[in-house]
């Protein structure tokens, strides 16, 4: 076939995306070799100073480490809960259409605005949660100013917001599964648990991997909940790279240094996600379904 | 005015050589049957003609026009696939109208032609149904109506009856013959793995094997004079039994020493190693004497029984009329009538075939 037709399909989208992304990307790379900040704007050249500073910036590296476990933890919880409620909403409960709508709603809400609502729930003096706790005779918790509870608060907000995404993708997957393997399992007299472990779960593997990957990509950008709930605090106990970079670039206006952190973050994110993608691809292959 | 293939070859990285130097002239108004095993290159040959498979070398011309620069959509080739392919979102009528409108027919003309063609395949009552609401056989009829109504100069059918049940197959086979006869100017090429289909449609037969056309001729020619053991196997259903033998001292000697007198037609061949072939319905189970073997498999189908027998000379398949109560593991004696034997060289080439069937 002539080359023109394949190109007609791919090139407009590809070129549009490149056109949108190329300048910001090149600019970000270039600016990391300058000293652009609040008192000195413009692209001078100072060599690798920013990169050197980044290597020594322990606050940055600990935020990356925190992001690593925060995103894996929240996505893991979202996957397990999302799968569970998807199984319930799949079949076997009354009024499942009602529950399906209800359980989808959090995904529809604006994360940055819901973060404000979460703040009004977790806020320590006038928040809903401490209000409830004191009412039942328990001690109030320092949800936003103590490191442990603050991380719990962020995890709860993330799980609430994004479990429905897992739920939706997994439920749609469950609904599209062929019926024959289940009939075969029923004829063999397999228990509910065995049917799940031997039939449902393996058949859902490709969809699960897709959903987990896209959630990991989005979770690597955790920002709204952290910024609105704790501003990275107490101290830096809940700070993610996105929040730290936001502070350096857009609040302290250290554009060059902020971009250096951002670029490194991007490189690491792509590397990590590529490795995870490869691992998943290998894990799912031998099952052959 | 015909479809001419000259030295057409296709090699792919994944499957190696799939079409190997094919040259052939297809004339309009005739039906050509491509017969061969599943990977023999039948589908590839059709896809190459349609333009769906780019060819590496060689030339395809239609009425003197080179196909090389003609993209698929300008070749005017109608195809019926083994799977029933229709547009799922269009009704039966819209499905059949679609190619006609693409061809530039007016809306009213297209409708008229489409209706005629749908009636011809007997789906007049289902005009507004979607393909998914039809049975497999009906879906294949829609596909057929769509291809027939176009009056294309080239019509390709790739095992169109493959996925249908036995009864429907029988019925459509007969209908096909009539339908194709109305396509006087078209080259019709029909691929199948089933010898009966090839014989019933009564057309020119091309036997394909490993990307080559290994024999071409009328059904009787190919059936009675298979040029090699490969053709003999492909064209015989159940497959022909082929056994290694040697000719010496006026006898055919089988692998285990069993021997029988040489038939008159084979007398002129010099002594040495050969292969003989015999069709399943020519083998007779003997009361006594003959070659002894053990039954390894029994298939009862309709009014016949197929018995697979392991003999010291090799595996033999025999067909018995009626239903017989024979069991796997039993021993059986068989006779290979000398006047029904094909003689092949050890490399598979035909030496001599028996007199025509039935005598």
């Amino acid at each position: 076939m002539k080359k023109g037709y394949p190109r007609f399909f791919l090139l407009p989208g590809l070129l549009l995306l490149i056109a949108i992304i190329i300048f910001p990307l090149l600019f970000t790379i270039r600016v990391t070799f300058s000293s652009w900040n609040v008192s000195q704007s413009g692209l001078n050249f100072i060599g690798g100073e920013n990169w050197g500073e980044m290597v020594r910036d322990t606050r940055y590296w600990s935020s990356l480490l925190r992001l690593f476990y925060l995103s894996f933890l929240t996505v893991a919880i979202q996957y397990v809960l999302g799968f569970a409620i998807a199984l319930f909403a799949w079949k076997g409960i009354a009024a499942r259409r009602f529950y399906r709508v209800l359980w989808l709603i959090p995904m529809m809400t604006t994360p940055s605005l819901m973060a404000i609502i979460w703040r009004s729930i977790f806020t320590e003096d006038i928040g809903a949660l401490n209000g409830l706790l004191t009412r039942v005779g328990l001690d109030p918790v320092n949800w936003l100013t103590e490191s442990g509870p603050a991380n719990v608060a962020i995890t709860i907000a993330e799980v609430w917001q994004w479990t429905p995404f897992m739920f939706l993708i997994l439920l749609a997957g469950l609904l599209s599964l062929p019926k024959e393997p289940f009939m075969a399992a029923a004829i063999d007299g397999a228990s509910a648990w065995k049917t799940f472990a031997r039939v449902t779960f393996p058949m859902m593997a490709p969809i699960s991997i897709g959903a987990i990957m896209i959630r990991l990509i989005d979770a690597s950008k955790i920002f709204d909940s952290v910024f609105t709930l704790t501003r990275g605090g107490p101290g830096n106990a809940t700070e993610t790279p996105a929040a730290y970079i936001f502070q350096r670039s857009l609040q302290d206006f250290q554009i060059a240094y902020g971009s250096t952190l951002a670029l490194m973050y991007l490189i690491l994110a792509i590397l990590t996600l590529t490795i995870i993608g490869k691992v998943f691809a290998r894990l799912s292959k031998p099952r052959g379904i | 005015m015909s479809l001419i293939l000259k030295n057409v070859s296709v090699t792919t990285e994944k499957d190696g050589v799939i079409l190997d130097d094919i040259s052939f002239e297809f004339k309009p108004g005739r039906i050509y049957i491509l017969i061969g095993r599943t990977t023999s290159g039948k589908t590839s040959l059709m896809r190459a003609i349609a333009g769906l498979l780019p060819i590496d070398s060689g030339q395809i011309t239609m009425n003197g026009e080179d196909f090389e620069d003609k993209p698929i959509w300008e070749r005017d080739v109608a195809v019926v696939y083994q799977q029933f392919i229709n547009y799922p979102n269009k009704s039966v009528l819209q499905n059949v109208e679609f190619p006609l409108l693409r061809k530039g027919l007016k809306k009213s003309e297209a409708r008229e032609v489409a209706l005629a063609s749908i009636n011809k395949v007997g789906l007049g009552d289902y005009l507004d149904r979607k393909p998914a609401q039809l049975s497999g056989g009906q879906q294949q009829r829609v596909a057929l109506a769509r291809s027939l109504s176009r009056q294309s100069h080239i019509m390709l059918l790739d095992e169109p009856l493959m996925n249908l049940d036995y009864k429907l197959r029988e019925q459509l086979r007969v209908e096909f013959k009539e339908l194709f006869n109305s396509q006087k100017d078209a080259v019709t090429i029909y691929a199948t793995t089933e010898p009966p289909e090839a014989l019933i449609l009564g057309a020119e037969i091309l036997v394909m094997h490993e990307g080559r056309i290994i024999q071409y001729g009328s059904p009787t020619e190919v059936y009675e004079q298979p040029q090699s053991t490969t053709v003999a196997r492909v064209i015989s259903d159940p497959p022909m039994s082929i056994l290694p033998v040697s000719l010496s001292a006026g006898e055919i000697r089988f692998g285990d020493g069993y021997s029988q007198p040489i038939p008159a037609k084979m007398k002129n061949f010099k002594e040495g190693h050969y292969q003989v072939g015999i069709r399943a319905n020519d083998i007779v189970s003997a009361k006594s004497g003959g070659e002894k073997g053990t039954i390894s498999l029994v298939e009862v189908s309709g009014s016949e029984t197929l018995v697979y027998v392991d003999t010291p000379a090799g595996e033999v398949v025999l067909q018995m009329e009626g239903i017989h109560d024979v069991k796997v593991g039993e021993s059986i004696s068989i006779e290979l009538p000398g006047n029904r034997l094909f003689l092949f060289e050890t490399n598979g080439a035909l030496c001599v075939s028996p007199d025509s069937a039935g005598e």
Partner: protein
Amino acid sequence: MYKVLKATFITIWSLFVLFPIMWAITTSFKPESAVVNGATFIPFLEYQPSLIGWKAILPGPDSLTNLLTPTLNSFIVTAGATAVSLIFGSLAAYGLSRFTYGWKNYSNADIIFFFVSQRIMPPVVLAIPFFLLLKELKLLDTHLGLILVLTSGLMPIVVWLMVDFFNALPREIDEMAMLEGCNPIQAFFRTILPLSKPGLTVAGMFCVIFGWNDIFFALTLTATKVLTLPVAVIALNGTVTPYWILAASTVFSIIPLVGLAFVIERFLSRGNLGGAVR
């Protein structure tokens, strides 16, 4: 036993899902005094419901802000970015599903990864260069500027979903269309596109959700003319956080999308989403 566990789980999860939303709704009807002096839960008993929060955001004498223009802006920007992403994204996805592209050592899988990887870019990385770029192009604080920027985040989702969707459609359909006189472009628009409604609907819904809910780009790349709804709400935050107003405007801004939950559910029940995620 299993049944009890299941019912308990379903109830707890449903309460958890509902709690923040109920809290937002009740807070939006609280007077200032019922918020700043500690948590209150039961209306009439613990506080007298008040419309002060809602009056602040709806047109009228007590209005603090106008949320209607931002709502319109959000509609325009979301619809625009969704349309652009769907058109270009599904064309590219179809190409990647049907043809083999090769450039040096890069294969289709690499091109798909390139598309998807655009989603890895955190908005903070892009905010400043986008600001400079749009300023240079005179697109700062315009609908078009924001639409283009959002497209870079939405098109990857469309490509990701639609490549799988097109892969699941039998190739024989496009081949048939080409054999019947359509070039690949006509084959796509006349036979494949009409079959792609379920896939396009799912991809479109994701675009709407992510586009409507974006705050970062809207915050950094628009000022007054193209204020979007979430940004306008955030801007209400003052020295004393007026939770009652913020709650009212949050409820206001999520209503349009909650309707989408019903649309998605209908698609699920008709079995139309299945093929879209395979």
